[in-house]
């Protein structure tokens, strides 16, 4: 991020200060820099562990979330009592807001700082970010903390809450469809939009390989906080380990290996364990501020929020949301598919991700360049999504913004 700041400083002056903003440079969308822009000043995550069998199987969600909180607070040296609000995204924890409150106290954030939890399924972490961004935009506070966590070792998918259902659900098609397990919605997408088993397997293999390469080349180092936890082995001995890398990346997988796997959800289906994501444990946190506040405190600006869109899709084809929401977000920002350099898209199931990429016509090299190794369950997406939204997508926006400074001189 320092590199971005260095380049930003190079653009801090121009021949004529406050040059007209009406000039247009080619097809590049020009953004202005306003004091009330929402900016990200710090973003970190824990490594990702495989649920139930992985490194965090004996860790609690609040412990993991607290590590993410500590990481961002320490990285920018903010006093904990200066945070205006905390919002945390989570799907499977039945008492997520209480878990988040525990994490807050574990991190030494005083009780005067309020906390809430939000659930928008795969997009919960992003929604937590937007809730904080909205609070800042409404001038409720100038600085807030958004986070997300999922502890699938403790609370897995489905199950709870579905034992006392209204029988009327079965009479309303879309309500009934909302009960279709995610794996079967993946089968529906594959069938309805003609995403073959081979396309899914290849997408998955590429994703794992990208993630393995990004890990090997240290591209995750800047965003991962090492986490020290106790874990119990098969014999019941507890030992302390420090986790620095993600678990579950299969960099050496091949098409042959993937082709041998049996369909996991439906006889004769195409969705397998190899082209679906694993269930995981992990947490992330992002410190959000107005541009004015970030400047006043001398905080680094990692990215600017330019647009956010939410669009609903039919419940029987869960996971195709990006194909519906991306065009809307681009339209709001006045950008086209080609203007964006990096797309970070949900890879809960290869079928859904491959369909979204094809539908939108995104060149494959722009899709998840650090890989998502089709690993993380839809529910884990939220924490992960937070990081890309600051590190990757916003990074790209910032780059564009920098270029735009060329014409737009509201940047100081």
């Amino acid at each position, binding site marked *: 991020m320092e*590199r971005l700041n260095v380049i930003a400083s190079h653009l801090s002056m121009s021949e004529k200060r406050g040059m007209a903003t009406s000039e247009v440079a080619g097809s590049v969308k020009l953004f202005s820099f306003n004091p009330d822009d929402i900016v990200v000043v710090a973003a970190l995550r824990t490594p990702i562990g495989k649920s139930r069998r992985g490194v965090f199987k004996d860790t609690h969600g609040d412990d993991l979330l607290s590590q993410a909180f500590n990481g961002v607070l320490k990285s920018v040296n903010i006093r904990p009592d200066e945070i205006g609000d905390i919002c945390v995204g989570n799907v499977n924890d039945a008492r997520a807001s209480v878990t988040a409150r525990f994490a807050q106290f574990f991190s030494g954030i005083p009780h005067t700082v309020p906390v809430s939890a939000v659930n928008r399924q795969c997009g919960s972490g992003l929604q937590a970010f937007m809730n904080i961004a909205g609070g800042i935009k409404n001038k409720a506070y100038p600085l807030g903390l958004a986070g997300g966590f999922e502890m699938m070792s403790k609370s897995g998918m489905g199950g709870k809450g579905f034992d006392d259902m209204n029988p009327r659900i079965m009479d309303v098609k879309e309500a009934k469809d909302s009960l279709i397990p995610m794996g079967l919605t993946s089968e529906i997408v594959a069938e309805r939009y003609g995403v073959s088993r081979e396309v899914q397997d290849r997408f998955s293999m590429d994703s794992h390989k990208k993630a393995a390469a990004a890990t090997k080349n240290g591209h995750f180092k800047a965003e991962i906080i090492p986490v020290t936890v106790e874990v119990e082995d098969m014999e019941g001995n507890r030992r302390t380990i420090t986790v620095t890398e993600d678990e579950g990346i299969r960099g050496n997988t091949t098409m042959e290996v993937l082709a041998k796997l049996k369909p996991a959800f439906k006889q004769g289906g195409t969705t397998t364990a190899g082209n679906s994501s694993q269930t995981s444990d992990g947490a992330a946190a992002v410190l959000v501020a107005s541009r004015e506040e970030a400047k006043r405190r001398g905080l680094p600006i990692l990215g600017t929020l330019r647009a956010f869109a939410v669009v609903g899709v039919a419940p029987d084809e869960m996971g195709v949301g990006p194909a519906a929401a991306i065009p809307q977000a681009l339209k709001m920002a006045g950008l086209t598919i080609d203007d964006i350099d990096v797309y970070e898209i949900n890879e809960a199931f290869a079928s859904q991700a491959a369909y979204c990429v094809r539908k939108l016509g995104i060149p494959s090299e722009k899709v998840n360049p650090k890989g998502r190794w089709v690993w993380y369950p839809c529910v884990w997406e939220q924490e992960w999504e937070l990081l890309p939204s600051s590190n990757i997508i916003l990074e790209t926006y910032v780059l564009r913004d920098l270029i735009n400074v060329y014409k737009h001189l509201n940047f100081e």
Partner: protein
Amino acid sequence: MTLSFKTKDRHGYSVKFSPYLPDRFVCATSQYYGIAGRGTLFVFDILSSGIEPVKIYEWNDGLFDAAWSENNENVVVVGAGDGSLLVYDVTNPKGPLKAFKEHSKEVSSVDWSPTRAENFILTASWDSTINAIWSPRLPGCFATASGDKTLRVWDRRTPQPQCTIQAHEGEVLTCDWNKYDQNILYSGSVDCSIRGWDIRNYNKPLCEMTGHRFAVRRVKTSPFNGNTLASCSYDFTVRTWDVRQPHAMEITEHHTEFVYGLDFNLHRPGQIVDCGWDSLVHVYKPRVLLDGSLIGMVPNPLVVTTLVEA
């Protein structure tokens, strides 16, 4: 005629002509605009058919500057984003011969001492110094451009600067020595101006050249004419100057992103290579340098706009 090459998915930071071979140059590039990702060093030959890559070397961090050895035609030193200085032999198909880890931050500038017996390499990093260039005429003497708005002249035997010039109103990003007068130095800055300095009396600049609309990324003096200067900028242009007049002789508009790298060919009068964030490398002669008689006073800058698709 402009020859062009596109370094796909790699964004140009620096280009340097070989001091030995008239048709060879290196280009230091970075993935993702040098903000993240890998770096690639391209060794190019200029052939009648166009620009051809002779060697391509990958590194795990962005590459920001390169310099040819002064005692071996095959050796290139490169500054990397991870703080290392890489030594490549272009006859060796594999990676660097050696990687020195000297800086904790990005190495933004490298220069090989032109004093033949010495073989010293000068490196500058992003802590505060941005650019460091050996004097082509005074052995052991070099100039640095830095973020504190100053230009400093040093003797490598003394830890204190020989002179500290309050050169600009913004960060100084680049400097270069006049190759025909050992006392004259030029600087380019974030404040958009280029200034000339006499190191014997630097209370005020010898000359000031304006016109760039954003920070001047690099200035280079011509090896063939003591009054000719070229500069590239964040304003996407390359400009050719006669230091005796305050505005450019020629404005070259053939990049669509920041222009970072620029160099004069030491063997072919007027030939320039440049590179930028649009991944394009261009080899060309500014029109005012095509014919010696054009050099000098021109009433208005000649604007040459070529959009080249390599």
